[in-house]
């Protein structure tokens, strides 16, 4: 194996940047400039319709829909058509994340909201898509998420990792997903026939 260098290599062009939460806020401000401009503010408040009966604890409707659609892609099935694999919608991952975020520290909640603004409004542009995230097809959404995941910005990658973690939390918490991982679940309160 090639020994790790005694000093790490120079940062690649454009990164890595060590970004603080303050800079995330700055990134959020950039997203806010897009989302908060008068024309876009109009767009932003229109066209975000929640599924009937949805009540929110922390998210605004547009944030909920970004998470809902991102979740569909983040836990997209490896075996499409396999009815044994629950979808993100089946498990209401976005609803769970909303409830979880409601209990988060306000600073973290604010940071996440700004990151979602980036996903919705700015990231598609970076991935060559001229529409906001929630209006894209699945393939384009995958491209947008992949572009954030491999971004040269440490902070954007960290933000994506946080979003990913929330979605996995909402998905793999449910016993209906444990068969995917071959996991037999907790021993406490285990049903007689097992969890799966």
């Amino acid at each position, binding site marked *: *194996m*090639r*020994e*790790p*260098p*005694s*000093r*790490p*290599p120079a940062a690649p062009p454009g990164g*890595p940047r*060590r*970004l*603080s*939460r303050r800079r*995330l806020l700055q990134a959020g401000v950039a997203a806010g400039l897009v989302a908060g401009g008068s024309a876009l503010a109009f767009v932003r408040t229109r066209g975000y319709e929640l599924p009937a009966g949805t009540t929110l604890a922390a998210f605004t409707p547009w944030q909920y829909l970004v998470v809902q659609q991102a979740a569909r*892609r*983040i*836990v*997209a*099935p*490896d075996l*499409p058509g396999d009815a044994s*694999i629950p979808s993100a919608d089946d498990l209401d991952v976005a609803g769970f994340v909303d409830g*979880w975020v409601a*209990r*988060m*520290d*306000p*600073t*973290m909640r604010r940071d996440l909201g700004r990151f979602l603004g980036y996903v919705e409004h700015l990231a598609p542009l970076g991935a060559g898509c001229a529409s906001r995230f929630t209006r894209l097809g699945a393939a384009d959404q*995958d491209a947008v*998420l992949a572009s954030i*995941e*491999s971004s040269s910005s*440490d*902070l954007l*990658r*960290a*933000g994506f*990792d*946080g979003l*990913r*973690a929330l979605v*996995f*939390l909402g*998905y*793999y*918490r449910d016993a209906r*997903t*444990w068969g*995917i*991982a*071959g*996991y037999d679940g*907790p*021993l*406490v*309160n285990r049903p007689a026939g097992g969890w799966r």
Partner: protein
Amino acid sequence: MTTGAFLRGRDLSGDLSLEVDAVVVGTGAGGSVALRELARAGLDAVAFEEGAWSTSKDFDQREDRMLPLLFQDMGGRSTEDMGIRVLQGRGVGGSTVHNTNLCKRTPPAILELWARKYGVTGASAADMAPAFEAIERDLSVTEMTAAMRNANNEVLRKGCEALGWKGAPLKHNRVGCQQSGFCELGCSYDAKQNALKVVLPQAVAAGARVYADVEVTGIDHDGASVQGIRGVVRGPDGAVRATVKARARVVVLGASAVGSAALARRSGVPDPFGQLGKGLRLHPGGVVAGRFEKTIEGWHGIPQSYECTEHLSFEEGSDRRVWIVPAFAHPIGAASSMPGFGAAHMAAMRAYPNLAVLTAMVHDETRGEVLAADDGRPIIKYVMSDADRVQLAKGLAACARLLLAAGAREVTIPAIPPRKVTSVAELEALDFSFVRPHAVPLTAVHPMGSMRLGDDPKASVVTSMGEHHQLKGLFVSDGSLFPTSLGGPPQISIYAFALHLAPHAVARAKKT
């Protein structure tokens, strides 16, 4: 003697005002021992804990329910730049409730270093031996037998054996272990001999009171002596439901290297030499996964029972500063550790039963810092040094080599893109220069060193007796004390130092 009790702040019907001999902030390894010793000395001692008071009945082995119950920020705490996840306990018993019960004494070489370079006196291996012996007896510390070694740990043992690397069984503090594998979510079987089960009940039996649900928001002082603490009880919506005030001659901080330093900073504790909160070590670790033909099911059994110390030296500046142990997570944690998303990620999750996972923790020399935000929340600044990044890369490479030596068909270093190798030749060709925070997922579970021991007030925060250099009556009794990383699990060191230093807090509290 007062009547000891476990109490819940949420049950308070109004504001609480107390006048006591001593207050302890935090109820983990350090705080629990300090509280017990104060109470056993006949003092009126009260501990305040930010989180809930839970018992084994509450631990249902579900990640989504235990993360909010047992971890700070619901498991989402991280360094300010979000490059390292920092898992810390919350609730009565602190991190001893969710830790994996590893019991190692402070290495004598570390104690010698602290004496030689950091001005710590009275804490040689001989000085500390009685405290270690007493704590190990209290916590029923024993070596884990081969029968307790699960498949994931057996992989590490086999890898060490195949490579001729140094490896050994670890000691733990469990009695009646069911080997369920859910240690990091609290023990449903009450097998952990920890602060929650052993030390705090001893403190309560000696007359101490333990208040859960109380967030201490400030240390009251006049710049020369402590006067007590103030705090709040919050409702589920975060609104203040009651205020708490306790006057005391002694305040002992046992709220972790992050929590204690942040509280001291937000309280305006004197810091004439700019030492408070500085020197934070995190002992950060990254993981490597090996896919085996056979089933591993690493979530079953005791999570960590074997260690590899081939690459671990305690000399400062050493080029061998990596401790390797198994690391396995339940599905949510595992999913978050695996790179990618979508169909490829789900396909990777299907290999979960066949994975063995090792972690390389860096005996770090990076000097981080704990600050307090305007709202009092801790801010963890930590930018990994170049030297530590090299150690991390070497550690991940060593994990990969161990997994291959133990028979892994494929080894993955989780990164974007993931680095996969199937042979030593491929591993040797791999360029590890990509390894750094943000490029690989890193987790830290052993913060230390933000309020260091030492006799020189210009280079430390508390004296070798654990008392703040400038603020009489303020003591520290947690991992904040350690001038450097320990290179291993700190719980026994924290318990032992708390016991070793407690007589000084007792003596201060008894002085009128």
